[in-house]
């Protein structure tokens, strides 16, 4: 990063001079990302919709990326900037690993992302914010961890589950009712699909599973064995079983009252 800023500063996000704008700049925005931990790892998932105002800009955008072998980042906010930020983040982790011969600690990776978001503050104030969710498996502590961010780069560790993006309010509500400490990996992946379904249910900017076009959420699992993205078949299987249940109970599983 320091090398880049010396040699090719034009490649760095956050170094650009922006012309003053009036009103809101129209650019595709990504929406809901959710994460949930389970004993042995963490699941990070995102819906597939990008919106531009009231228009659906893209139906099958990918918003969850592996950051390296043991972590992943999901992005909400301005899609173009966010994808660039992730690319640079991936590059930096890989570069560090090759030069130093060892991986950054999970904490170190989370801090690095924080700095990158902060450098985007100028853009964020013009309405082009990037708000990622970072999840990874901490090899030292031997558990999955989730970090959430705000537009100013403020970083906070989330316990159990977290969500970001426009549908996050609804997703968080769903997860709050469904989460428990002893989830298996399969239950955790089902939980995120339920949460994304609820987000899509109440937030117009979040896309639900699209059976007709075979577009399903991106679900990734990070454990001791590293990063794994669920295949198309696995994701469609999960989504279909959730959809099937929702045909009987449109509001999803009921939690106990007391």
């Amino acid at each position, binding site marked *: 990063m320091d*090398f*880049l800023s010396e*040699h*090719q500063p034009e*490649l760095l996000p956050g170094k650009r001079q922006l012309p003053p704008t009036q009103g809101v700049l129209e650019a595709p925005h990504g929406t809901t990302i959710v994460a949930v931990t389970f004993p042995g790892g963490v699941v990070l998932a995102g819906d597939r919709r990008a919106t531009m105002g009231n228009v659906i800009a893209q139906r099958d955008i990918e918003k969850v990326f592996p950051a390296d*072998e043991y972590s992943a980042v999901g992005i909400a906010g301005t899609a173009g900037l966010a994808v660039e930020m992730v*690319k*640079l983040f991936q*590059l930096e982790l*890989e*570069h560090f690993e*090759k*030069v130093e*011969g060892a991986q950054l600690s999970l904490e170190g990776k989370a801090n690095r992302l924080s700095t990158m978001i902060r450098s985007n503050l100028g853009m964020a104030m013009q309405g082009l914010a990037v708000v990622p969710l970072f999840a990874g498996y901490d090899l030292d502590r031997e558990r999955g961890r989730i970090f959430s961010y705000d537009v100013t780069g403020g970083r906070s560790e989330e316990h159990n589950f977290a969500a970001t993006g426009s549908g996050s309010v609804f997703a968080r509500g769903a997860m709050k009712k469904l989460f428990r400490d002893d989830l298996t990996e399969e239950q955790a992946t089902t939980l995120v699909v339920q949460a994304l379904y609820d987000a899509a249910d109440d937030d117009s900017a979040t896309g639900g599973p699209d059976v007709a076009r075979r577009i399903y959420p991106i679900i990734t699992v990070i454990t001791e064995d590293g990063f794994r993205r669920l295949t198309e078949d696995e994701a469609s299987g999960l989504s279909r079983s959730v959809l099937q249940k929702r045909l009987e109970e449109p509001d999803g599983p009921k939690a106990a009252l007391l």
Partner: protein
Amino acid sequence: MSTPFYVSPQQAMADRAEYARKGIARGRSLVVLQYADGIVFVGENPSRALHKFSEIYDRIGFAAAGKYNEYENLRIGGVRYADLRGYTYDRDDVTARGLANVYAQTLGTIFSSAAEKPYEVELVVAEVGETPEGDQIYRLPHDGSIVDEHGSVAVGGNAEQIGSFLDQRHRDGMSLAEALRLAVQALSRDTNGSEREIPAERLEVAVLDRTRPQKRKFKRIVGRQLGRLLEAEGAGTEAETSEDE
């Protein structure tokens, strides 16, 4: 005022080459071999932390003999070059040929500049292809020339002898265990022709394995896996990816 001695350019260059060659010859040799599924790097290295081989990019590996601080400098330069290129364009646009060219330029400039001492290093840049025919191995001697190698290459102290030993015995399509054992055999030959034993702990081994599902094909072989490969008699040489990177 004393008149500086006249030294002919030929003599000056020969002296510098001699100096660099002697420096390189002090270090232990290392070999790079093609095998059926990729390229294997083998060298004698008592240190676990100071590597002679390392990853440059997805399909590109780096090996160096000579002075540590000098080749480490070149290695980091190479990683920067590759990462910057891959970020600016695309991961596919980083090639061993391009990297070898940059190294050749750097080494050549340093070698012929009178202000600096020549680098006492000899490098190997290797890229694993989709098929064995696509593999590329470049050897870069201290003076900035490039030699395009096939099959096997040795650099460092006893390189000539080891190189001819390997040339006679290396064939295409060897398994990893076969290639590894051949490499160890070659490395255990001393300058005076006698053989000595190199224990597995003193070996540094890395592969560029084209069968790896990840984009990054470079992998170090350490510990038990190395022991297994050295002991394996021919069959059953599938490298496991469960070991740490």
